[in-house]
């Protein structure tokens, strides 16, 4: 199967629901940002230290979930194409909360703002967090602009909100296991 079609050479592309839209369309921007986040999660996974199998599995699950989410963002709500889409697993946000708690358990309590950075893998997790926040902002804009059919988008927004929390904790966790202390913000 070839990757290129040429159908986008003049600046338009197709939504999953069939509409041809400019490549700067709000839905394309939204799922493009999810794609960017997904790619950065791949960078984080590639830099994980040995033995962090549970985190690796977390990241793979997130990458798969972001594919599901991207398909929803690429589809006009209430279109017949939604019949082909798969909802995020119902427990997806709760599952993330459990993992956030598990990672937090080994960390010193946070009392001040910290600077994003430290070990490269942790710094990339911070980058992922910020892109995740941008994804969330795009999504809330989509939800606000659409007239209906947003139940799944609302679920995705909750997931992204929790995911960015996870990525913040993951950055701290990775610095911690690699022996790098949090660097606090000096006013």
């Amino acid at each position: 199967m070839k990757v290129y079609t040429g159908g986008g050479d003049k600046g338009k592309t197709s939504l999953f629901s069939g509409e041809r839209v400019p490549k700067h369309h709000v839905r394309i921007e939204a799922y493009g940002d999810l794609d960017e986040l997904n790619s950065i999660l791949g960078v984080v996974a590639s830099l994980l230290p040995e033995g962090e199998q549970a985190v690796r599995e977390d990241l793979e699950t997130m990458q798969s979930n972001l594919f599901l989410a991207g398909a929803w963002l690429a589809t006009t709500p209430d279109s017949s194409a939604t019949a082909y889409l798969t909802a995020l697993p119902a427990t997806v946000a709760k599952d993330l909360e459990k993992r956030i708690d598990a990672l937090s358990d080994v960390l010193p309590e946070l009392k001040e703002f910290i600077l994003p950075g430290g070990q490269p893998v942790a710094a990339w997790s911070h980058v992922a967090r910020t892109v995740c926040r941008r994804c969330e902002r795009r999504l809330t804009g989509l939800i606000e602009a659409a007239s209906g059919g947003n139940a799944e988008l609302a679920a995705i927004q909750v997931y992204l909100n929790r995911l960015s929390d996870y990525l913040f904790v993951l950055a701290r966790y990775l610095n911690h296991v690699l022996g790098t202390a949090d660097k606090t913000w000096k006013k």
Partner: protein
Amino acid sequence: MIGTVPPTYSVVVVGRQWLNEDVFVLICSRPAGFSFLAGQYVTLSLAEGEREYTLLSPPTAPELRFLVKRLKGGRVSGALAELAPGTPLGMGRAMGYLTYRPTDRPVVFVATGVGVAPFVAMVAAGVTGFTLLHGVRTVSALFFRQELSVAAHRYIPCLSGKAEPGIALPALHRGRVTDYVDRTFRPGLYDFYLCGARAMITDMTLLLDELCPEARVYSEAFG
């Protein structure tokens, strides 16, 4: 991103029906647990390699039928053209999104060559009332013309090869499917379904962007 899919099912060659000297219908057994939507494709695997083929059959069919073009030097299509009944093949799960989506809009199917396969499957599943443009070089490649023209609101064969003596088809268009759309369609709320050669998909998509920017366009390319 699209990756490879390992065979999920094992099927057996049941038979073969030649439609012209290059194209045949491959008939295979239907494995237990296999489900699909009209218009989807699967990957068939054999010793010579693996290729994607669209199912001609409706979802309820007891056997699976595929439209196969024997390519010059094609290892897989050449092997499929020779396999004896009873030969096992690997088959992946059904894939693809070129499936009929009920709509109030006029529906236009556009195919070139064996790209007509998903529309044959949709018709077998009960879809009617569409316009179908089938672009081929010669009349012998207008596969399933009878079934398609009965189900269609308008069936437009588009012949791009040399004129064939004694051939008179209703609604025949001499030229490519893109020429036909360019000459006859006006802006409107259509649902277009495109299947066939990649060059046609590209040209038609760009044409529709200009001609019918409000149209929905679903497509599946090969080659």
